[in-house]
Structure formats: structure tokens, C-alpha cells
């Protein structure tokens, strides 16, 4: 994996300790380790809930009546409904649990699609350069600077015409989020590709007669993707927020198709004024918890990759391996000397003061 940065220390470590998360867990200390472990625990719980939702949930997500008649609308928590029922007469607990499944599905589809599209475009654009590269950069910068929620709204109008049906609604949400994320992967991979293209080993491969395709996917790709786990975590949390935002604005998934937290919150909006708290509190807490968990993981990984932010004990051990793995390659968090590169209106993400200096 690390042809470019193969220090003796890196090669000595076992395959187990070089696995992305395990490596960071061992590297971290104190507070950072605590944050990473907390994040991993929450994320694992979320994934497990999503997978076992059919077993865990007492009712189906679109179930309106049980063995003893209809659930009734806006029932307070207790008895057969530990978290109460919604204004539409659904069981809140069941919808929160099933919502995890929808969220996970959307994250996986959105992140996978945007990784494939973004990485491919970034590789091609960065490797070949020229006018195609310039146009792609301008377009991706423009898209990147645009409010992602609005873009997602437009895309979801295109895909589902603003209506949502079974799988269509879920897919539409996932694809809307994908389009928003492609520029992020594109920018990172492109910047890495441009950097790696100039490395001696790429030159050597070309001298040996390797074709463009081989160089791109064998030499450049495998070295350009080191930062992906980081962006992936940051994007997953954003995917949930965008999905919930879409749902909240009425572009989500119909309650009969799947459970979606944003949609439930939208329906709970009118409950709040009459003091009904359980319909909004629980789906909202579910969103917060999942985003918190994933962000904690992402944040810890980001800090551990940046020698200036990493806990002190670990600095000596691994500095050689993770030399340039900030979210944005060459990214810098300091305001001090050399901190602010010439940036042209491109947007960074709501995560940090990471700046793009291609």
C-alpha cells in the first residue's frame, strides 16, 4: 500500500495493526482514544440496529394496527408503545429502529456511488490534465460551493418528480446525496493524482512501457486513496443530515415505503406546539446519535493523521507513515506562516479549517 512512504518501521508492523481503524486505535492515547472508541461504539450499534431492525422493532414501520385494534394517534409513551405513537398512528419506537435501516442503506449507496464516480473522474482528470481537467475543476468547484441541500432538492425533483414510491424514494435520496458528494472525492483524488503523477515511480513505470490505464489504476490509484476513509466518515454523517433535511422538506420517503427520521420530524412539527414531545424527540435523537458517532470517528481519524493535532506520545512512532494524509492533501490548519494558500472561491467543508492547496 505504501510504496511511496515505505519506512522500515512501517514494513515491520503486522498486517493486523496496519488495518485502517486498528492502526489508529493503537496509535491514539488518552482523550483521542476515548473519542475514537466512543465513536466506534455508537457507529457499530447503529449498524447492528440497522441490520437487526426487523428483529428488534416490535412492529413494522408502516403498521397501523396490532392484535388488539388500531394503535391510535399521538398516544403517550408507555404500555404497548414504549415511545408512544405518531400523529399518523405509527409506533415511534418501531419507526426509529427501522429508520436506521433506511439511513444505512442510503449512506452505503450514496457513498459507494460517489466514491466510484468521484474517484474515477478525479483520476482521469488529474492524470490527463488539459482542457477537460480545467472544465471539471471549475464545474466541481461550482457544485461544491452550492448549498448541498438545495442541490439535493433539485436532483430529487429530477429523479422522482418530487413524488416518492417504494425503492424509488430511497434511491432518489441516495442519488441526490451522491451528486452532492462527487465533487469532494473528485477534488481530493485529483489533487493527489496530480501530485503522484510527478513521482519517480510513475515515471519509471512509463519508461518500462506501462499504458496509461495501468499506471492510473495500479500506480496512481492505490496511492491516491489513502485519504478516502476520512472523507468517507465525514460524508456518511453528512449523508444522514441531507437525507433527513430532504425528508423534513417533504422530499423524503413516504411512510409506507420505509421509515425515515426526517419525514417523522416533519410530521412532528405541528405536535410540538401542543406539547407532544415524543414524536419529535426520538427520531431527532436517533439522527444526532448516529451523526455524532460517525463524526467522532472521522474527527479522531483526522486528528490522528495530522501530526500537529495528534496526542504527543504517538508522534515519534508513526510520523513517517502518515506524512500527508490530512483530509485535503497538503491541507493545513494553521493560520501562521504559509497557512493560507491562494484559494479561489472553492468551499471547504463544514468540518474544519482544511484548505485546498493544489
Amino acid at each position: 500500500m505504501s510504496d511511496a512512504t515505505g519506512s522500515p518501521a512501517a514494513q515491520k508492523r503486522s498486517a493486523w495493526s496496519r488495518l485502517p481503524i486498528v492502526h489508529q486505535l493503537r496509535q491514539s492515547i488518552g482523550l483521542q482514544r476515548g473519542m475514537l472508541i466512543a465513536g466506534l461504539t455508537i457507529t457499530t450499534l447503529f449498524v447492528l440496529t440497522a441490520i437487526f431492525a426487523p428483529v428488534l422493532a416490535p412492529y413494522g414501520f408502516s403498521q397501523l394496527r396490532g392484535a388488539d385494534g388500531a394503535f391510535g394517534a399521538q398516544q403517550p409513551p408507555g404500555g404497548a408503545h414504549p415511545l408512544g405513537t405518531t400523529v399518523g398512528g405509527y409506533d415511534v419506537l418501531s419507526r426509529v429502529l427501522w429508520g436506521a435501516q433506511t439511513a444505512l442503506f442510503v449512506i452505503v449507496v450514496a457513498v459507494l456511488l460517489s466514491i466510484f464516480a468521484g474517484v474515477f473522474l478525479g483520476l482521469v482528470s488529474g492524470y490527463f490534465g488539459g482542457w477537460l481537467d480545467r472544465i471539471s475543476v471549475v464545474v466541481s468547484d461550482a457544485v461544491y460551493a452550492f448549498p448541498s441541500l438545495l442541490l439535493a432538492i433539485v436532483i430529487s425533483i429530477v429523479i422522482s418528480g418530487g413524488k416518492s414510491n417504494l425503492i424509488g424514494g430511497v434511491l432518489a435520496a441516495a442519488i441526490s446525496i451522491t451528486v452532492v458528494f462527487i465533487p469532494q472525492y473528485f477534488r481530493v483524488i485529483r489533487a493527489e493524482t496530480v501530485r503522484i503523477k510527478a513521482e519517480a515511480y510513475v515515471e519509471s513505470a512509463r519508461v518500462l512501457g506501462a499504458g496509461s490505464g495501468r499506471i492510473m489504476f495500479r500506480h496512481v490509484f492505490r496511492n491516491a486513496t489513502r485519504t478516502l476513509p476520512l472523507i468517507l466518515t465525514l460524508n456518511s454523517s453528512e449523508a444522514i443530515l441531507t437525507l433527513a433535511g430532504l425528508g423534513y422538506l417533504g422530499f423524503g420517503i413516504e411512510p409506507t415505503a420505509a421509515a425515515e427520521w426526517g419525514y417523522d420530524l416533519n410530521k412532528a412539527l405541528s405536535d410540538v406546539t401542543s406539547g407532544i414531545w415524543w414524536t419529535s424527540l426520538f427520531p431527532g435523537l436517533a439522527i444526532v446519535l448516529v451523526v455524532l458517532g460517525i463524526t467522532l470517528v472521522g474527527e479522531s481519524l483526522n486528528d490522528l493523521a495530522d501530526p500537529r493535532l495528534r496526542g504527543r506520545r504517538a508522534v515519534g512512532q508513526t510520523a513517517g507513515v502518515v506524512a500527508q494524509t490530512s483530509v485535503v492533501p497538503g491541507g493545513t490548519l494553521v493560520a501562521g506562516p504559509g497557512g493560507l494558500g491562494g484559494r479561489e472561491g472553492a468551499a471547504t467543508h463544514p468540518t474544519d479549517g482544511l484548505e485546498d492547496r493544489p
Partner: protein
Amino acid sequence: MTTVTTRSPSPRATGRTKRPASESGIGRYILIRFLLIFPTIFILVSMVFWLMRTTGDPITAALGGRLGPEQLAERIQAAGYDRPIFVQYVEYLGQVFTGNFGTTISTNRPVAEILLTYGVATFELVCYALLVAFIVGIPLGMVAAYWRDKPADAFLRVFAILCYATPVFFSGLLFKLVFAVYLDVLPVSGRASTGSELQMQLLPNKTGLYTIDAIMTGDPGVLADVLEHAVLPALTLGLLTAGIFLRLVRTNVIGTLGTDYVDAARSRGVSEFRLVRKHAYRPALIPIITVIGLQIALLLGGAVLTETTFEWKGLGFILSEFLRARDFVAVQGIVALLAVIVALSNFVVDIIAALIDPRVRY
């Protein structure tokens, strides 16, 4: 500010020439940066146009269920949606260039007029939110940097992540539940109560910015009412950004605390507190300015959700109304305008950043 930058040991800063050279540099930078606005706006407007049109014409989308096929065809022809799409595209670009964003289908009003009326309210909300973000984010960020890796820092970092992790509509709902329903100290929604709104309507030259209008009425009751209504929405949207500012200030102050000139100050016996407050803090604020520009996009997205939650009659509120009415001409217009706003504000922020920090310039 200048004292700080000249003292910093950057090789570029020491090699800086006299005033005239840097002045022509900034002129060139502004020009290039200004020219870059146009492709950005062009790309975004075109993208929105083509995406929205792939779904079909907006008249069928809005009125499809309610009118017969003949009437529909008539309306489509009258609006010119039966012409080749490329002709419509060129025409649309021309219209946008002259500030004409079309006419809404559901209410038959010019989109530009709607944008003006409601845009002011959004602007007011965003200003309030930025105020909250500054007041909360910057001091707390410094506190976190000062007690780096201590419990206070851990707590503040989790707080910052929570700010980001909580969707604005959820925090808005919670605030409403606690402060408006249970404690009943703040109004549930809207920008002002009906009485105050009436009083402000009577003003001869009203601005639409309720805070200013309320001051102009000269009635402290109206002003108090307007401010009361603004508290919860401003907190909701402001905390989202406050979390980002907190993190940014923290990392930047930690970064500057490690620089040579801070070390030099420390060796002169300057206290750690004074180092954070006087030496490390000001250069750490420069990136904040850049980041505000980047936050405009996030703030506008958040404003849509906040306004929906609090029935704050701004662009986001009206956008969700139009979405519900399936009036895609209006949606397209609002989205296109927001694209223009984002591009322009990024431009302004970049210029400010360049004026403050000479290293940004080309």
C-alpha cells in the same frame, strides 16, 4: 493586524516589496477573482435549468392533475414551453442576466419580486445567526485551545460536534418545545406578532428588516417583540455555525501557539493566558473570515430548514411552500438566485481575506 503579519517569520512575508507592488497585486487579484464569478454562476444556473427541465415542463408538473389536456397544452404554448429546449435555455440565460427570474405559476408573481420581499428576512436571520456564532464560537474556541486536551477541551469539542450533528430542524423543535411551550417565555414562530407587524406596515419607508423597522416605529414594545421572535431561530441557526467556528478557532490557535514568535514571547515570560489572548488569537482569526464565505452555503441551506421550522417568512420558507405547490419555475428561480448570492459572497469574502492577509494574493 499588520504588526502581526510582518512579525511572522514567513519567508514570503519578509521578501515582500514596497506598497506599490502589492497594490497592483491586489488589483489584479480582485479582477481575476471577479471574472471567476461568471463561469460559476453560468455553470450553476445552467445546471439547475437542464436538471429541472429533464422532468418535463413546469406547467404540467404544477397543474397536471387539475386541468384538462387541451387547457394544459394551451397554457404550455402561451408560456413558450413547447419550443425547442435550447431556444428556451438561451432565452432563460438572457433573462437571468437581466435579473428576470421568471413568473411563478402558483401565484403568478415575478420571482424577482418574491426574492426581494423574502430575501430580506433571510438576510436578517443569517445576520443574527452569524452574531450568535461569533459570540459563542470564538471565545469558546480560545478556551478549548487554552486547556488543550484537558476536560474543558474535551467537553467543548463534543459540544462542537453536537452542534454540527444536530440537524437545525431538530434543535429548532427542541428549543420550541422547551422555551416556547413548556417555559412559555418566547414566541413559538413567526417574525413578529400581528400587532407589531401592522405597526411596521404603516411606516412610510420600511426596509423589511424588522429590527430596523421596529426601531423606526419608535415603540420599544415593537422592538422587544421583534427581538423576542428572533431569539430561537437565531440560536438554532447560529449554534450550527458556532460549532464550526469553535473547532476552527481551536485548531488555529493551537497551530499559532506552536509558532516561533509565540515561543519567543513565551521565553520573554509572557503568561500562557496572554499568549492565547494577544499573540495566537489574532492571526488565528484570518481563516475565520475565509470560512464565513464558505459557511454562506451552509447557512443558506440551514436557513431553509430553520425558516420552515419557525415559519420565518424568508426565502427558505417560501421555497418549501413552492416545493409543496410543485411550482418549479419559482423553485428554479430561487435556487438560481441563491447560486448568485453564494458566488457573490464568496467573491466578497475572498477579497476581504486578501486585503487583510497579503499572503492570499497571487
